[in-house]
């Protein structure tokens, strides 16, 4: 009898443990764009003409059209400082926020739990450090939790901040918190948006559609008609990643390519490599690989190398490990970006607002793609493998050591 109850107890304990651990691992996957996944996983798409399945519930035609237009638009501002540039700026007056320095800036950060946010956060700190008029910078890290960020924002509004920068963890949940802060302090939102226009400015790169489209169009251009494409996604149900895939779907649907699979990798290198190996086995060869984020691109490339096959056209992102692989293995590749230099812009915007200078209501930053032509510019030997090349941090004090590099 004793051993029964022990067995049941053990089983019960295991079952209980599974829940919290599963809950915290679901926070971990690191979509390069930003923090925690929102929404429930959607069912996987059924097969259609081009194998791309149903269009994502997150797809908004007007947003897609706007982003496609912005990709072609010429940004205004200094071309050597893309973090100060903006596309189609609708300038607004900020005279009512004007006040004399020195300033106390505050920042509510969603998380620093992935390399993209790491690089961005270091870049923002360095940007703050080079402005003498900012005498105090208070930052709170919400560690990927909405509830913590809500209380962080409430706490910061009571701290006498002259301006509040917010990088929201999720869009909908953080909206009331931001709305509550707006009347008390000028608010600057960046990376992800909120569903209110009360912030003085919202800073973002062009967006997910532009990322997904740049990669897909490259494949449509480079892969011969009828070619087999494997699409790799991190996980379903996250808005910033859904937009990337939905734009790629639009491009593939219009092409002569055949998407033989759309797979989720959890952002895990070993899983990515296994999935790609499975597809190589199943189809003999693949003619192109589309990825919604670059963190596991090197693993995908290695799957071809280990199978003894040439690496087909592929996209990654601006992380050094991929750029190095691209250069060393002479890949046919492209690296669309979601630039980390956007972490500089909120600080610049805050100072402009406090000085009463005009800022765009929606500050659309350019979102370049790394191509064969400019690869050498972005390949930076001595920087860590997961460093993002578009940090815009090269001119900041402490580069490269502060970003983990060696000069």
């Amino acid at each position, binding site marked *: 009898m004793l051993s029964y109850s022990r067995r049941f*107890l053990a089983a019960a304990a295991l079952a209980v443990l599974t829940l919290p651990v599963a809950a915290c691992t679901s926070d971990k996957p690191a979509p390069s764009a930003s923090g925690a996944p929102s929404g429930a996983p959607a069912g996987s798409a059924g097969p259609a003409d081009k194998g791309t399945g149903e269009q994502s519930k997150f797809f908004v035609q007007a947003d897609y059209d706007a982003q496609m237009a912005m990709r072609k638009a010429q940004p205004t501002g200094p071309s050597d400082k893309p973090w100060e540039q903006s596309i189609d700026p609708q300038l607004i007056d900020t005279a009512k926020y004007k006040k004399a320095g020195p300033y106390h800036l505050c920042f509510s950060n969603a998380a*620093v739990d992935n390399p993209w946010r790491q690089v961005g956060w270091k870049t923002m700190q360095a940007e703050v450090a080079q402005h003498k008029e900012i005498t105090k910078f208070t930052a709170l890290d919400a560690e990927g939790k909405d509830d913590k960020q809500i209380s962080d924002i409430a706490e910061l509004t009571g701290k006498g901040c002259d301006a509040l920068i917010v990088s929201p963890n999720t869009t909908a949940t953080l909206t009331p918190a931001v709305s509550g802060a707006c009347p008390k302090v000028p608010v600057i939102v960046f990376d992800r948006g909120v569903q209110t226009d009360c912030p003085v400015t919202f800073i973002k790169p062009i967006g997910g559609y532009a990322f997904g489209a740049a990669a897909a169009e490259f494949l449509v251009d480079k892969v011969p008609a009828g070619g087999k494409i494997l699409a790799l996604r991190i996980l379903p149900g996250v808005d910033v990643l859904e937009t990337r895939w939905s734009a790629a779907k639009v491009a593939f649907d219009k092409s002569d390519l055949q998407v033989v699979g759309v797979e989720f990798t959890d952002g895990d290198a070993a899983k990515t490599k296994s999935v790609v190996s499975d597809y190589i086995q199943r189809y003999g060869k693949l003619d192109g690989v589309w990825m919604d984020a670059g963190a596991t691109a090197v693993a995908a490339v*290695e799957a071809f190398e280990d199978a003894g096959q040439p690496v087909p056209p592929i996209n990654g992102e601006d992380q050094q490990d991929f750029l190095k692989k691209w250069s060393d293995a002479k890949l046919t590749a492209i690296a669309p970006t979601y630039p980390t230099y956007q972490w500089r812009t909120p600080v610049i915007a805050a100072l402009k607002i406090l000085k009463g200078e005009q800022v765009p209501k929606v500050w659309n930053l350019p979102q370049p793609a790394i191509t064969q032509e400019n690869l050498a510019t972005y390949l930076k030997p001595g920087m860590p493998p997961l460093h993002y090349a578009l940090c815009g941090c090269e001119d900041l004090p402490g580069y490269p050591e502060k970003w983990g590099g060696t000069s």
Partner: protein
Amino acid sequence: MRRALPIFVVLAGLLVAIAVVNPYFLEPTAFLAFVKRAAPLVILAAGQYFVIVSGEFDLSVGSLVTAEVVIAARLIDGSAEATWPVLALMIAFGLIVGLVNGAVTTLLRVPSFITTLGMLLILSGAVFLWTGGSPRGALSEQFRQLGRGSLGPVPWSVLILVAVAAAAVWATRARFGHTLVAAGDNDRAAALSGVRVARVRTVAFMISGLSAAVAAILLGGFAGVSAQVGKGLEFQAITAVVLGGVVLGGGRGSVAAAMAGAFTLEALFTLLNLYGISGALEPAVQGVIIIAAVALGAVRFPRARAAAAS
């Protein structure tokens, strides 16, 4: 051994099912690739078997794997000369973590799922603090070879797996294995008949730590540095062991069946992938397996024992 039979039948069934969908699977290269992919989990399951059969759990192996890979990348930093010393260090680190788990569980009498859950959190927190979420450095080509390369047609990881499996089977047949099972079945009786329960359980934890170190070497070699490499591996290993018919709570089961359980789990994931079922289902499948296997074990066993007794 009779208890172990069902899992081999299930495994064979799954392999046949995969071969039906993908005939290429039966070719030597494809099959070796499958074994290579399964190797880290099989090794972890073998390690986990020793802990489970002795009546304990080791939940720390997943984050131990991550810690090992991240530490190795930082220390090697792409340099070939550092490879072998760092490999030795990884093995030592795995053994030490196992020793701590074992000592805390047996000497301080902290239940092992608390000890190892604590270790899981400590290691993942320490890795996060140290790396800030973004691992630095790189593994050398020499290091990568163990998980990526092959000796002729046979991947190194398959050779390592064969060696580990042989050692594990040998250990369970040796005196150590018998005392371990005795300790898991009834530690009081084992202690009274002269088994040093605390010592054999601590050694079991050290074996599990060692298996995590070997798995880390293979996984890091296979896919390179990642701060998520070990994510969820502890549950995969426990699922595999349970699937192999090893009784949670200890005292019953064979290491060969536990390893077959790991192959079965990997085969199941491969099959799901071949049928295009989303990877998001994997945790759900694992959950169902754990609950079903434990429930079946609890329901079926009394009858078998009653029959044996009569």
